[in-house]
Structure formats: structure tokens, C-alpha cells
């Protein structure tokens, strides 16, 4: 049986669209939503409720619908869409949901993007008020953006069959849209929902550009677009949502908002059923009843909760044979799924449809998001905008006004005021339309619920939250609507309580015996309607999500089978496995080759900051714990930086390039942070210092050449350089040529071995790397990655900032008092070293740990305890393992750890809980290899 009228509505009956719902094939027409097409086929049951599994239908015709959740299966899986907002297309496959959907397991092939727009006046909503507001502002010359959620302008006019100025309302709408579209500087966007309103006129809107095309959506066109709009003035003409009344078993399919049934009738030519009961508290449902009756629906009864029915409308109903009973309410419903009968007191009426109207809720979400205060309107039983904002105005039924002429007048006033506030003088006045509507009275009775079975009286149909849940919340002592919302989950579903929130507030006020005017409404938050993460991500997916930084030598690493480690945005070679090698065997080989002959790594990611100026030395003396101004040109010093709290924030080498020029290196991950740190002090504390800082990280390719044979390799490629220990001392640098390229070679070591760091312009990095590989071939030169670097430095007890340290560690804790100047009168952190807290002997200090069983590898992060048996909790933790590796040089495993009073505990046995046992470990000095430093000079 079809419920489609032979004529009427904005649908194309000549074209058939095939679709499948819950496994059954149906047809609909262009212009349908999935919901209207289902209703036309007599399908009311969509899915089931999330907790109780009760059948759920279609309550409303638009985005306020709490129940018609569907999963699209084809063309592409998409969960949690409303059947009422899915435009029908050929081949659509969907199914109803039980409150939860399923994300597509495969990547979404569609493209999503974002666009920025700036305007003088933004109008949200293209109903009568919004259209007049937009045209008024446009005629003043303002740049206007008009957004509307629907696929065509008209707003509430789309759901009625009324005349404006004695002609169909669509003609009036069409004329205004046509003028807007031809006015320069005006942008009209359909299928675009403003979902978030933020400070300073920033509005986010989602435009659904090709969703409605289904399989025919052209490739290469962004499916959805987030508009990032910055506007001077905003007019919110967002309309109003009809709200229901709560009564026992009010959740059956076939129970629908009266105005939504009217919308299905007029916009889609669809009848909601054959025989309907109407339950109302106000006039507007009468129009729905009369229109449906004229279209052939048997209106069994109008139950009006008011003591007296409106005389004129009652007469019109009588003329059509519709019975009206005043002072009556629906007390229950029956039905196996869809409603089959309604109880009104002792009267039982069989029907397949129950239309409900409990009044109107102005859509104040965006106004509230804009921090506009709301006011409770007692007559309307709803929150309305309670103040004027400088840049945001509400107009039309969003203010609680229901008369069309008055709504349009508000639109004109708001459009004019917004344009004026944006600096424009009025243009030609937009005439106000005159409506023939019969149902615009505000005079309703505010009824939240009909007393009955509380646990079957649903407030939020999507969350399965009932009156009983609300009363349980108030009974538990909750009074604030915000708390009750969280306790009951009312208003937290996809619809954000568009039809349930106000009723919940009303029931709470009744239960607490307080006035709603004194209740603070819950804060509306973005998004107004659901927005997919794909849309929010836009183009920032996959490779475009975050920049990837690679060094000049990167192609060689890739070609030579390196595995990579992400360090910030950098890709760093982690290790270079040979066939059959895993991490441990590869790293043991790389370590052994480096300690026994020569190894080489790509250190280009090291942060490098060029510090210049007359006061550069003075400045660095304040930043580092040790003295830098006394460093001689040509020499290098290792330095530690602390925060004012005395905790280590970074370390690295400082090269004195010239009298007024230093090159500072930072850890890879801290390069930007340390440059910021320098700028902060220079700009905010010491602007009188003549110092300039610039990042030069990417200017240089940096290659540490490490091991006893490094001198031989360097000599082979740097013929101008005297590489002897006497001519090229430790912690000095020389400018020379390496492989024919200008180079700066520093003699520094992060492994304890004889080592050089070769720096060349990044352009030459790859060529110099290859030349070094060739020159080192006869020594078995071995490229190594970050893992080997970590092992080599850990064997020497050199800490890694961020691995051994965590912002609670001082240089003294690391055993680096030697790097803290006693001579300097002040430097950042110095005063903190004298604090009592920083001088406690039970601070956590860096030590080495040797598992008694030399094959046991402790997991990094393991806790350390004092006893070989765990006492009752709480167990006192002494610290944790910061680094742990097998060592080729030591022929065993070892670890570094931060341990309470660690320096005093050297020689003690402590225990590390690991799996089911306590692993005994011996505490040692943090330097485990070549304590004497005998290997430094080769």
C-alpha cells in the first residue's frame, strides 16, 4: 500500500529511485529523504533503542529527529545518519540501527576539504526571517553569507501549504533567493549547517556537497566541506523545533510530531498513516490535522490539553467532521511495534498514527554557543535569547515569535541592524509578506508530561531515558540541569536533546518545586548536528597530516635498508639490518664495529642555533649552567641548560665560531623549544642584550664519524687537515675540506671513542656521506642508527634528555656537577640548586644497574624496589629504569636508572619486579665502559 499522494510536494514522480532498507527493496523519488520514501512505503519502524531494544520510528522530519538512526551500507559505509536528513538516491542501501553504528573498515575514498570565508553579515537559516534579513543586509552593500541546512531555501514554509501575498510561498522564496544570487558579494549555501559558533564572529559550517548524489557523486569533488567563516555580524534565523509531550509508551513508531507530519505531507506528498489521533497543547497541531484530513487521513480525534479548544479552529474541525475534545490528554498507547491504539483516559481509540504537539522550542543553540544568555519564556515554555549581543542577533521563530509576518519583520530589523553595525547604510527596504496562516498563535498550555508509568514515559527516546530516570536523579539530590544531564544522559545523543532537553528541564523543575525561570539551562555546545571526523580532518590525512622531515642523506638510508624511527617530525635511521638480522643482532654488530673499527651515523637532525651579537657570550652564560663566554674561538664546550626551577631542559655542545658568534646544538626533539626559550629571555627579560638567534638546523648535514679508525678515514678524505691528536685536539674544531667540499669538523664524542663530527652544507650531505663510506670501506665502516647511538652513549653513562630526564632531574642528579659553574654569579636555575628540596640526599639520581643474571634485559620503565620479596602494598618505589640494552662491549645486559639516593647505593643489590619475579640488580656508577676515558684519543 502506498502512502504517497498522487500530487503535491517537491518531488519528481516521473523518476523512480530504487533503494534497499533492512534488506527490502523499495522505490522513491528525487526530492525524497530516506525517511519520506520509507513513510511513503508504509515503513515506520526504523531501528530499535540502544538499551531496551524497543522499536523506534520517525518522530520528526528534520535534523531534530531523535530516533531514525540508520547505517548507510552503500555506496560507502557511514554510521549514525538520520533517515530524515539523508537525501534519497538510486542504489542507496541502508539499515536501521540500535543506537550504534559501525565505521567503515576500509579507508574513505572521498575527499573532504575546508574553505575560509570572510563576510560582514552572516545569516543562518533561510526561512522567512533569514531570507528577509539576508536581502536587507545585501541591499545595503554588505558582504552577506546565507546558510541553510536544507537542500532549498524556505525553512518552515517548506512544510506548509500557505500563500504569501496571495501566491504560493515558494514563489516569494524564489524571488528573494534569485535577488540574493545576483547581488555581488553574496554567497548562498544550501545543505550547509552552521554547527559551531565561537568568539570574534568565527562560525564553522558543514556543507554536504555530493552526499545527495550517491553513486553519481563525481570523483575529485570534495564530498563535504567545512566552511570557516569569520563574520562581523550574525543574524540567527534558526527557527524553532516542535516538542512532544511525554506520556506512557510515547516511544512507539507511528507517534510523530504534528508539524513534522504536516511537512511530510506538503514537502514530500506523503501521508503518515490512515487513521490518526492528534494530541496537542496549542493551536499549531490543528493545521496539521485539517491539512491531513483534507488529504484523506481519518482524524479520529483531537485531544487538546487546554480546558477550552480554540473556537475558530474547533469550528473548522467540526466542518470537516473532526472531533475535538478539550481538557483531554493521551495516557497511553498500544501496539506490537507501531502504535495501534491510543488511550485518552477511559477512552480507547484505534489508530495507526498519533500526532503530538507540546509547543515550540526556539533553536537557541548557536546563540548560546555565542555566550548569549537565555531567558525562560513562561508562555512558550521554552528558553529564548535573553539579551542583545553586540554582534549576534536572533530573528524569527528563533526568538519565540510564531507569526510569519512578525518573523519577517524581525528579520528585516536584524538584517538592517547587522548591516549598520558592520558599517553599511540601508538600501531598498524589503517588503514584508502577508500570510494566510491560521495557526500562528503562541497561546498554548505548557505541559511536559502526562502522569503515568514513569519507567515507560520516555524523555529522551534515543538514550532510553525516562521520567523515572529523571526522578531518580532528583531523588539522588541532583539539582543542576548540567548534573542531571550527565546522570541521565538525556540530551547527549546525536540530536543533543533538541526535542528532549526542554522537557527534561521542565520535569526537573516540577520535581524540585522550583520555577524554570530560576533554572540555569544546560550550555549548548558545538556541534549543533553530527559532523564526521573525516570532514573535520579535511585534507589533513595520511601524508598531509603532519610534515615529514628527512635529511639530505635520507635516500641513502632508504636504499640501504634502514628501518626508521620517528623523532618529532624527523625520520631517523633506527638501525640497518642485514639479511636475517633482528634489532638486537643488528645493533650488537653496529656497536662492535664502531668500538672496534669505525662507524658513522646521520646526525643532521641535531638542532643547531646560530647565536650572534656583542652580548652572545653573556647571554649563553645565563642560559647554560657552565661558562661559555670564556670559550676560545676554535673550541667546543658541552653545556647543560636548566629551567628557573633548576631542572635540566636540554644539553648539547657550544662551538665558538668567532668573537661574537656561537653555534649552539640542541637535542633533535628540542630544537624549536630551545630557540623559543632563547627568544623569550631575550625579548622579555634582556632586550638590552645585543644578541640574535637563528635556526640553522636544516642548513647543515652532520655526520659523526666514530671509532678508533675514524682518524684514518678522515685523513683519507680531508687532505688539508692535520688529524693528529696534537694538531686536532679533543673539543676543538677546524674549517677544512672534506671530499673536496668546505666542511667544519668538530672533535667531539658521544660514545667515548675517538670521533669527529663532519658538518657540510646540506646540499653536499649525500655526496660527503658516500665519500666517507668509500674511504672507510677497507676498515669495514658501518653505518649505524639511533639505537646503536643510544647504546654507545648509555655504556658511557651519557644521559639523553627526555629519556633519563623528565623535568624533575637536576644536573647534580645526573652526576654532572662538573658542568655547573661555581664561578658565575648567576645563571638560569642557579638559585634553585640552593633550595632545600634540591639538596635532599634521597633525590632520585642516575646510576647504572647490572642484572645479576647478565642475560636478563630489564624493560625500560620498570620500577625498582628495595627487598627481594614484595611487602604489602603500598610498596615503596625507589625509582625506575630509564634505559636498558644488551651491550657488545660489556658482554652482558645493563641499564641506567633513576634511583632514590642512587649515588649512595652504589654496590647495593636492589630488585626489579619483572613478570612474576623480582630480578636482583647491582647498583653501579652510571659510567660502565672505559671509565678512564682511554679511548677518546684513539
Amino acid at each position, binding site marked *: 500500500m502506498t502512502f504517497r499522494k498522487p500530487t503535491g510536494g517537491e518531488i519528481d514522480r516521473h523518476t523512480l529511485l530504487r533503494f534497499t532498507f533492512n534488506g527490502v527493496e523499495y522505490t522513491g523519488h528525487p526530492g525524497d529523504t530516506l525517511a519520506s520514501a520509507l513513510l511513503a512505503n508504509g515503513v515506520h519502524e526504523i531501528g530499535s533503542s540502544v538499551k531496551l531494544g524497543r522499536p523506534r520510528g520517525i518522530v520528526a522530519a528534520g535534523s531534530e529527529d531523535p530516533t531514525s538512526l540508520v547505517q548507510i551500507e552503500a555506496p560507502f559505509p557511514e554510521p549514525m545518519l538520520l533517515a530524515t536528513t539523508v537525501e534519497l538516491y538510486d542504489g542507496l542501501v541502508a539499515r536501521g540501527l540500535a543506537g550504534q553504528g559501525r565505521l567503515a573498515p576500509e579507508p574513505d575514498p572521498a575527499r573532504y576539504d575546508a574553505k575560509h570565508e570572510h563576510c560582514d553579515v552572516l545569516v543562518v537559516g533561510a526561512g522567512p526571517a533569514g531570507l528577509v534579513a539576508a536581502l536587507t543586509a545585501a541591499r545595503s552593500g554588505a558582504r552577506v553569507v546565507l546558510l541553510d541546512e536544507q537542500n532549498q531555501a524556505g525553512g518552515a514554509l517548506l512544510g506548509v501549504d500557505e500563500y504569501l501575498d496571495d501566491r504560493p510561498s515558494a514563489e516569494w522564496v524564489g524571488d528573494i533567493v534569485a535577488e540574493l544570487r545576483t547581488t555581488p558579494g553574496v554567497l548562498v549555501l544550501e545543505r550547509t549547517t552552521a554547527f559551531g559558533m565561537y568568539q*570574534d564572529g568565527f562560525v564553522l559550517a558543514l556543507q554536504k556537497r555530493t552526499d545527495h548524489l550517491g553513486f553519481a557523486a563525481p570523483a575529485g569533488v570534495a564530498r563535504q566541506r567545512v566552511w570557516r567563516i569569520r563574520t562581523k555580524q550574525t543574524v540567527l534565523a534558526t527557527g524553532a523545533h516542535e516538542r512532544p509531550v511525554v506520556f506512557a509508551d510515547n516511544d512507539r513508531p507511528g507517534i510523530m510530531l504534528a508539524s513534522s507530519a504536516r511537512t511530510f505531507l506538503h514537502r514530500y506528498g506523503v501521508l503518515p498513516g490512515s487513521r490518526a489521533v492528534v494530541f496537542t497543547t496549542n493551536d499549531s497541531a490543528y493545521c496539521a490535522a485539517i491539512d491531513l484530513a483534507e488529504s484523506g487521513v481519518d482524524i479520529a480525534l483531537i485531544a487538546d490539553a487546554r480546558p477550552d479548544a480554540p473556537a475558530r479552529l474547533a469550528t473548522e474541525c467540526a466542518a470537516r467532521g473532526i472531533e475535538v475534545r478539550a481538557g483531554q490528554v493521551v495516557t497511553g498507547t498500544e501496539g506490537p511495534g507501531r502504535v495501534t491504539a491510543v488511550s485518552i483516559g477511559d477512552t480507547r481509540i484505534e489508530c495507526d498514527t498519533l500526532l503530538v504537539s507540546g509547543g515550540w522550542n526556539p533553536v537557541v543553540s548557536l546563540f548560546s554557543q555565542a555566550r548569549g544568555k537565555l531567558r525562560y519564556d513562561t508562555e512558550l515554555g521554552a528558553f529564548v535569547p535573553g539579551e542583545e549581543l553586540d554582534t549576534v542577533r536572533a530573528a524569527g521563530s528563533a526568538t519565540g515569535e510564531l507569526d510569519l509576518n512578525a518573523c519577517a519583520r524581525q528579520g528585516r530589523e536584524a538584517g538592517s541592524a547587522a548591516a549598520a553595525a558592520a558599517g553599511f547604510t540601508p538600501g531598498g527596504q524589503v517588503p514584508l509578506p502577508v500570510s494566510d496562516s491560521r495557526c500562528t498563535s503562541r497561546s498554548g498550555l505548557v505541559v511536559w508530561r502526562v502522569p503515568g508509568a514513569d519507567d515507560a514515559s520516555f524523555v529522551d527516546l534515543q538514550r532510553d531515558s525516562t521520567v523515572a530516570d529523571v526522578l531518580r536523579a532528583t531523588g539522588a539530590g541532583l539539582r543542576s540541569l548540567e548534573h542531571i544531564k550527565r546522570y541521565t544522559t538525556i540530551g547527549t545523543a546525536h540530536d543533543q536533546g533538541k526535542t528532549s532537553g526542554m522537557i527534561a528541564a521542565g520535569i526537573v523543575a516540577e520535581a524540585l518545586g522550583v520555577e524554570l525561570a530560576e533554572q540555569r539551562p544546560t550550555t549548548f555546545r558545538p556541534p549543533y548536528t553530527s559532523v564526521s571526523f573525516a570532514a573535520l580532518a579535511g585534507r589533513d590525512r595520511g601524508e598531509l597530516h603532519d610534515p615529514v622531515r628527512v635529511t639530505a642523506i635520507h635516500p641513502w638510508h632508504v636504499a640501504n635498508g634502514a628501518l626508521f624511527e620517528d623523532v618529532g617530525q624527523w625520520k631517523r635511521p633506527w638501525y640497518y639490518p642485514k639479511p636475517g638480522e633482528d634489532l638486537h643482532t643488528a645493533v650488537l654488530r653496529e656497536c662492535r664495529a664502531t668500538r672496534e673499527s669505525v662507524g658513522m651515523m646521520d646526525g643532521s637532525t641535531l638542532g643547531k642555533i646560530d647565536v650572534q651579537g656583542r652580548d652572545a657570550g653573556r647571554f649563553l652564560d645565563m642560559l647554560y649552567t657552565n661558562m661559555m663566554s670564556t670559550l676560545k674561538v676554535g673550541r667546543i664546550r658541552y653545556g647543560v641548560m636548566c629551567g628557573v626551577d633548576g631542572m635540566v631542559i636540554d644539553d648539547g655542545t657550544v662551538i665558538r665560531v668567532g668573537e661574537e658568534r656561537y653555534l649552539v646544538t640542541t637535542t633533535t626533539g628540542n630544537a624549536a623549544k630551545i630557540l623559543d626559550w632563547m627568544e*623569550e629571555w631575550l625579548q*622579555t627579560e634582556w632586550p638590552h642584550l645585543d644578541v640574535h638567534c637563528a635556526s640553522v638546523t636544516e642548513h647543515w648535514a652532520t655526520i659523526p664519524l666514530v671509532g678508533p679508525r675514524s682518524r684514518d678515514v678522515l685523513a683519507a678524505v680531508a687532505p688539508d687537515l692535520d688529524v693528529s691528536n696534537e694538531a686536532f685536539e679533543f673539543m676543538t674544531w677546524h674549517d677544512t675540506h672534506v671530499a673536496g667540499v668546505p666542511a667544519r669538523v668538530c672533535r667531539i664524542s658521544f660514545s667515548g671513542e675517538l670521533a669527529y663530527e663532519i658538518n657540510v652544507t646540506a646540499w653536499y650531505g649525500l655526496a660527503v656521506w658516500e665519500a666517507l663510506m668509500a674511504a672507510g670501506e677497507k676498515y669495514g665502516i658501518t653505518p649505524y642508527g639511533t639505537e646503536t647511538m643510544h647504546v654507545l652513549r648509555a655504556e658511557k653513562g651519557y644521559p639523553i634528555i627526555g629519556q633519563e630526564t623528565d623535568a624533575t632531574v637536576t644536573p647534580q642528579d645526573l652526576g654532572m656537577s662538573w658542568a655547573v659553574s661555581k664561578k658565575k654569579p648567576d645563571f638560569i636555575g642557579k638559585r634553585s640548586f640552593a633550595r632545600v628540596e634540591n639538596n635532599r640526599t634521597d633525590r632520585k639520581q642516575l646510576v647504572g644497574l647490572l642484572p645479576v643474571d647478565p642475560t636478563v634485559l630489564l624493560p625500560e620503565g620498570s620500577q625498582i624496589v628495595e627487598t627481594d620479596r614484595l611487602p604489602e602494598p603500598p610498596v615503596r618505589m625507589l625509582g625506575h629504569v630509564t634505559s636498558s640494552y644488551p651491550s657488545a662491549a660489556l658482554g652482558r645486559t645493563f641499564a641506567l636508572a633513576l634511583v632514590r639516593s642512587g649515588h649512595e647505593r652504589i654496590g647495593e643489590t636492589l630488585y626489579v619486579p619483572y613478570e612474576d619475579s623480582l630480578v636482583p640488580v647491582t647498583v653501579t656508577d652510571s659510567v660502565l665502559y672505559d671509565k678512564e676515558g682511554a679511548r677518546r684519543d684513539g
Partner: protein
Amino acid sequence: MQLIPCPWCGPREEAEFHYGGQAHVAYPEDPSALTDEEWAQYVFFRENPSGPFAERWSHSAGCRRWFNAVRDTRTHDLLAVYRAGEPMPEVTS
């Protein structure tokens, strides 16, 4: 997203800026002359008013300048911005 009027660049989106905490907390002239408590006040303690608050901001993804702003912590409204080194202007909130 809020607009922050950088005194050097004009209004820019807040995502370009970095927050720097309370303004006008000078590094002590002679830290060694301070008691532990006085030093701790400098290192750890900051105001947390409800209302106008002078703060440091850095236009870190723009001109990279530090400047000061008076922000009403109840509304986030920026009541004034001024360059580093300039005195805090009178504001009404």
C-alpha cells in the same frame, strides 16, 4: 577561534599564538639575595584572578614577538594588548 590583536601584526587567529603566563613577573635582580620562600614565589607562584589579568603572549607562528595582553579570564575578552616593556594600560572590564 578567538582573534588576538598582535601589536605588531594586527588581529590573527589564536592558533598562531603561544601563551606565556602572567606578565610583569620580572626575573629577580639578585636571586642569591632571596630567601628560599621569596625565590619559590618567583618560580612557582602566579596570580589566578577572576577578571582582568595581564599576560604574556608570543606570536609564535607569526612575527615571533612576545607582547603583553590584558585578558578578562571570565570572558576571554582581550581588553588591551601592548608591547613588551610598555606599562600596562588602564582597562575597564
